[in-house]
């Protein structure tokens, strides 16, 4: 710790930080543009000037850029010396000379860092009278809007996009005051993390194009803390609503999970909630004409009388919803809604993490690892933000280079100069090339069986006591030997695998590699990805698989938030469903399953309900209802409770908190999740936390066309937040942060004020509770010794190929994401394509385990012989896809 003096006051700060970070952490408002806690400083905007003094006797001092000066012992600075204040106001005036007169039509307005800094720096009146430089804009795809005139040349966008996120299609062009930030040509931004430009760019150059369709100012949004529902990473988000539709998703800072960022699926997938495929009415026997809640429930009561019920929950529904359903139908009749195979895979992964002696990391821990070995996953498409963290992890080892040269890591330009393109080891073994390959040291492409074997070879070279699979080529063994030595050469290796190549041996091999490293004394981490936002929670809750539960004889089936046709083949599900007298489906969007329902009950999405998801790390995270919809929708768990009441078996639990509490009482492993959020009667200064800002507008007009009398606002019985602007607006407990705002800081950069130290943990700790810790008791090496993959005579073996846009159920219903979803496809190498006599881009008929689909042929030469990559999760694609035959 170093002692420094800011404005005459003494502070203890980390000498590894710079003076800007130190000043902001100390609570001073120093304006800045180009510095970002995750990107470091480059000193290009000159906005963060302060006066630094040589010693106590120095009264003159000199101007320095606070972001470029280390917070070294004994530094004395003043942030409000007149020299600095004047300099900053001149700088911002110069920055604004070309700025367009756009605020009223700029989507950034009201949460614009440039607006904030202009006010903070005291620039008011434009004196510059000459012409303004202008730029043409580019089309950047369905997610990002480009308005280049507003650029202040801070370089944050390219530094984030290229250096941090590993993209290469955004760049800076031209020279002097003409510099242009965009693509070489108009076109879709390729990075899966392009949406973060919206938050990284301090101006309105890059804005959210989906927000533009229904533009709303930050102050007019009703917002609540939420959890992304589009994959198992469980990024923290803030979701905003206005006039009954969801308007946008912003990242919610959680140091342990997603930090400042989100992937594009999480940011832009929200539009499924506004889609015309939403179910908002009660449907009985295929019609909603004349059906009311009462008549639907009358029907249900008759249908359920004296009948045996089976309940199918869902890995995309909250813990509470699954638990309530389980309580309704009884343990014996409850399924978590996964196919037997998927259930076994997820269970194996969870058991391995629970019983082993290797810890599964949070994304923050991932970013601290030094070498990475990925088995069988295309992380960028299956757990996107994990891929972004891996990109950071492999930079760690090279950072020592900068350290040795005495360059602090925040000093981005020289640090990069020294590091160049070097990075720590990343090795990928997968069925085919993936997005992360661009930074991989080695890749090994083969069938899942062979990936598992390859994993065991690596494990053997780490710990020679482990057996070496037989029949390997020299090329494979030498690759594996290199990987083993790379992993052993670092103190913190990370092994990543997951359920997406649908092979248990791959999971087991990954575990063995990790255990071997642990035995070798390494501080190793093991990370498994899962398919859906609450797969881990559902499997922990325990229940049967679909195949098992359908063996039970029953007359009525209740399916909650689950499209069974995404779990098993159409033939199987059709035959299962046909055995029931009644199929009651609770869901929020139309699916193939709702088409078969005799009764559909509308329920809320994750923004219309409270709930808990457990992410891939085993972290239970709470999400909150954002608004009360005016349609018939209510929370799934509340709907299930209504059914219980209707059939005279009412539950004791009344509100969300009660359900969470009894969940904990019934399942000790969830102990602690009741403390994830303050109870509903929690108050700060006698008030609930407000979901709406103090400037929220239009409340006496927005519904005046329907009823000129304003109705009493609805109270939230489930959480400690109010649905209106009445309530507490200061800093709420971290699990209840509805939006980032501080006086003078209207943009998301107000996050600084919520952190103990900029870029660090939140005041009050990061929300979430880990439920999975390695118990170290039953740890064993699996050594499953799988057989090598053999090309079978005629058919091909299908391997699922996941795409960030298209493979996930809910986001692919979102308008903007839909534009990025390709047709269903089959990947073949040229040899197999020639053998089957099909050509690239041809649409052909294939059979997947007997179910026909029409798909487009894509040639991928790194795919092994005998394999066919199939677009997983796409519409009409059989989830069981092991045997592929090409019909043409």
């Amino acid at each position: 710790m170093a002692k420094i003096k800011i404005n005459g006051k003494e502070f203890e700060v980390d000498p590894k930080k710079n003076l800007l970070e130190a000043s902001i952490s100390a609570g001073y408002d120093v304006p800045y543009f180009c510095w970002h806690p995750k990107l470091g400083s480059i000193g290009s905007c000159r906005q963060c000037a302060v006066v630094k003094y040589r010693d106590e006797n120095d009264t003159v001092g000199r101007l320095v850029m606070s972001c470029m000066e280390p917070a070294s012992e004994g530094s004395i600075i003043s942030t409000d010396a007149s020299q600095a204040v004047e300099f900053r106001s001149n700088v911002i005036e110069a920055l604004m000379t070309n700025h367009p007169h756009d605020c009223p039509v700029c989507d950034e307005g009201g949460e614009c860092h440039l607006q904030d800094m202009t006010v903070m720096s005291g620039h008011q009146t434009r004196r510059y009278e000459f012409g303004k430089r202008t730029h043409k804009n580019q089309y950047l795809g369905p997610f990002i809007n480009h308005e280049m005139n507003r650029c202040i040349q801070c370089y944050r966008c390219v530094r984030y996009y290229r250096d941090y996120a590993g993209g290469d299609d955004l760049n800076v062009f031209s020279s002097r005051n003409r510099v242009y930030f965009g693509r070489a040509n108009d076109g879709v931004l390729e990075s899966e993390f392009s949406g973060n430009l919206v938050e990284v760019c301090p101006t309105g150059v890059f804005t959210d194009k989906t927000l533009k369709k229904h533009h709303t100012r930050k102050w007019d949004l009703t917002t609540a803390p939420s959890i992304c529902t589009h994959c198992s990473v469980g990024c923290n988000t803030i979701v905003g609503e206005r006039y009954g539709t969801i308007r946008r998703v912003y990242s919610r800072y959680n140091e342990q999970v997603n930090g400042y960022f989100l992937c594009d699926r999480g940011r832009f997938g929200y539009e499924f909630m506004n889609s015309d495929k939403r179910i908002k009415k009660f449907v009985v026997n295929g019609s909603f004409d004349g059906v009311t809640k009462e008549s639907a429930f009358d029907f249900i009561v008759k249908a359920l009388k004296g009948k045996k019920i089976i309940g199918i929950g869902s890995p995309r529904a909250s813990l509470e919803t699954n638990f309530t359903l389980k309580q309704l139908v009884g343990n014996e009749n409850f399924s978590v809604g996964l196919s037997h195979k998927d259930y076994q895979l997820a269970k194996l992964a969870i058991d391995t993490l629970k019983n082993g002696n290797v810890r599964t990391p949070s994304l923050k821990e991932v970013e601290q690892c030094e070498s990475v070995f990925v088995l069988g996953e295309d992380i960028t498409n299956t757990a996107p933000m994990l891929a972004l963290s891996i990109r950071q992890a492999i930079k760690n080892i090279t950072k020592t280079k900068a350290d040795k040269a005495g360059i602090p890591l925040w000093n981005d330009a020289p640090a990069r100069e020294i590091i160049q393109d070097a990075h720590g080891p990343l090795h990928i073994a997968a069925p085919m090339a993936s997005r992360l390959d661009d930074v991989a040291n080695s890749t090994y492409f083969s069938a899942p069986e062979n990936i598992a074997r390859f994993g065991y070879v690596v494990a053997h070279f780490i710990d020679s006591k482990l057996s070496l699979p037989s029949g390997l080529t020299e090329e494979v063994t030498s690759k594996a030997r290199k990987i083993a030595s790379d992993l052993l050469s670092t103190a913190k290796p990370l092994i990543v695998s997951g359920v997406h190549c649908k092979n248990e041996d791959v999971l087991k091999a990954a575990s063995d590699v990790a255990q071997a490293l642990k035995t070798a004394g390494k501080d190793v981490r093991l990370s498994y990805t899962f398919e859906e936002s609450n797969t881990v929670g559902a499997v922990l809750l325990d229940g049967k698989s679909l195949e098992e539960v359908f063996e039970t004889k029953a007359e009525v089936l209740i399916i909650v938030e689950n499209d069974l046709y995404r779990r098993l083949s159409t033939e199987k599900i059709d035959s299962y469903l046909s055995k029931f007298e009644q199929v009651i489906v609770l869901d929020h969007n139309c699916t193939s399953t709702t088409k078969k329902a005799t009764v559909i009950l509308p329920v809320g999405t994750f923004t219309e309900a409270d709930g808990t998801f457990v992410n891939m790390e085993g972290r239970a995270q709470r999400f909150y209802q954002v608004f009360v919809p005016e349609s018939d929708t209510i929370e799934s768990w509340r709907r299930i409770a209504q059914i219980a009441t209707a059939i005279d078996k009412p539950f004791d639990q009344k509100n969300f908190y009660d359900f969470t509490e009894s969940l904990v009482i019934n399942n000790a492993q969830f102990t602690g999740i009741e403390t994830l959020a303050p109870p509903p009667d929690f108050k700060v200064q006698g008030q609930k936390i407000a979901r709406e800002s103090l400037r929220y507008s239009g409340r006496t007009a927005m519904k005046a066309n329907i009823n000129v009398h304003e109705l009493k606002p609805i109270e939230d019985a489930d959480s400690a937040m109010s649905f209106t602007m009445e309530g507490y607006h200061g800093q709420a407990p971290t699990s209840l942060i509805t939006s980032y705002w501080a006086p003078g800081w209207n943009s998301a950069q107000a996050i600084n004020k919520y952190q103990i130290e900029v870029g660090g943990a939140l005041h009050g700790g990061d929300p979430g509770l880990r439920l999975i810790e390695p118990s170290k008791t039953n740890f064993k090496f699996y050594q499953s010794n799988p057989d090598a993959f053999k090309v079978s005579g005629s058919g091909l073996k299908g391997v699922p190929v996941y795409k960030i846009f298209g493979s996930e159920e809910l986001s692919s219903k979102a308008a903007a994401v839909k534009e990025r979803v390709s047709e269903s496809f089959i990947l073949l190498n040229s040899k197999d394509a020639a053998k089957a006599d099909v050509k690239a881009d041809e649409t052909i008929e294939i059979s997947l385990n007997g179910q026909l689909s029409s798909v487009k042929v894509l040639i991928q030469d790194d795919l092994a012989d005998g394999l066919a990559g199939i677009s997983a999760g796409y519409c009409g694609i059989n989830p069981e896809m092991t045997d592929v035959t090409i019909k043409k």
Partner: protein
Amino acid sequence: MLSHLRSIGLALKHTFAKRETIQYPDEKVDLAARYRGRIVLTRDPDGMERCVGCYLCAAACPVDCISLQATNDESGRRYPEFFRINFSRCIFCGYCEEACPTYAIQLTPDYEISEYDRKNLVYEKEDLLIAGQGKQHGYNFYRVAGMAITGKDKGEGQNELPPVDVKGLMP
């Protein structure tokens, strides 16, 4: 005693003073243009809607009686999809007019908007939008702003240089 007499004297004096009472509704009061009465939405000199849906009036309104939704036409021009003022709540403070960056929303000297039925005081865009420019003549926001719209491409706004040639090599 003296003060009583003075009071009586004053009252007497007022009896002969000029009358301020106006025989409304036969006679109308002559109000200044800046009087704060019924609110209108005006058009720019080209006859287009001035409002760009920036929400500033709504945010400034102390009784929150303005609500609108911004939308864009194909040319990128932003305008309100709906614009509603609940005059049964409006206190005619004029903050909206002050906040408006485009001179779109203006208060007028018309105060005769009483209704028997409160819901008739809810005005939609059709009711608010007038044909002219109101009190502020000549201002056209889109000519000053940097956004391109039909008929005004980049660099064609007021005080704007032609768009940069990114591929230009001149120093």
